[in-house]
């Protein structure tokens, strides 16, 4: 496929996925051009285990989405992001919640967050809970998406260990979680 054809195909795909009306054709054209540069740069890494156009479109989609996510979170600090994802203070929940199991579970989670997680894990997991995408977190803390995912994965594993060590089983936790639909 010639580069001009590939570029037109990327534009057609991005327009379908992101909608020209929302972002304007210029942004999509720019993203397709940026993706084209990356595709040419990485062409040696194409293994042939997918169609070439799918491989190229995956690069273009990530480029476009990352651009939009970074623009969306541009003026927000990591602390502000993390604050948006904070679990509500226990006192606020206690005043509205008479379910003791729910309170016990919340206390285990809160204690584990305070004692078992590193500061960076706390920040990252709370930012993630606020809906901040991994590439934005990665950019703020100067790392890559894989490292952010590892940070979050390890934090989740520590929370899981703390919950089970406190005597909960997966079944009992899931039963209590049903009540969070209205109280979480």
């Amino acid at each position, binding site marked *: 496929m010639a580069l001009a054809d590939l570029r037109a195909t990327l534009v057609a795909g991005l327009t379908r996925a992101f909608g020209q009306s929302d972002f304007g054709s210029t942004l999509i054209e720019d993203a397709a051009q940026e993706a084209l540069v990356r595709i040419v740069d990485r062409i040696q890494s194409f293994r042939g*285990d997918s169609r070439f156009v799918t491989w190229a479109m995956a690069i273009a989609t990530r480029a476009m989405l990352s651009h939009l996510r970074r623009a969306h979170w541009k003026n927000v600090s990591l602390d502000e992001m993390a604050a948006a994802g904070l679990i509500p203070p226990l006192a606020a929940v206690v005043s509205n919640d008479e379910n003791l199991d729910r309170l016990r579970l919340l206390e285990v989670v809160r204690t584990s967050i305070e004692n078992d997680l590193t500061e960076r894990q706390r920040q990252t997991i709370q930012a993630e809970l606020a809906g901040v995408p991994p590439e934005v977190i990665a950019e703020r803390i100067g790392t890559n998406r894989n*490292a952010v995912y590892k940070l979050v994965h390890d934090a989740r594993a520590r929370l899981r260990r703390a919950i089970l060590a406190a005597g909960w089983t997966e079944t009992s*936790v899931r039963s209590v979680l049903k009540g*969070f639909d209205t109280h979480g």
Partner: protein
Amino acid sequence: MAERNPGVKALVEQALSVLPQELGCDSYAEYLAAYADYRLGGKMPPDSLKGVGEHLDRCDACLEEFKLLLDAMQGADNHLGEPSGR
């Protein structure tokens, strides 16, 4: 933008579903196109791509990206006049 369900419930659900070994967001992306081709063709991806599905079950950001890729491929295949998938 995808919004993650905030709060304790989401956090605990994520903790319960954690696996000992998971692909990271960049590692998963290396196999994304192959996985997408199987899905576009309506076929079950092979076991060698199991980690991609597991990652998508646990990462909202990548799931959003995957869904957009499937949409984009519909547009690309319409443009090319080709059937989707493998």
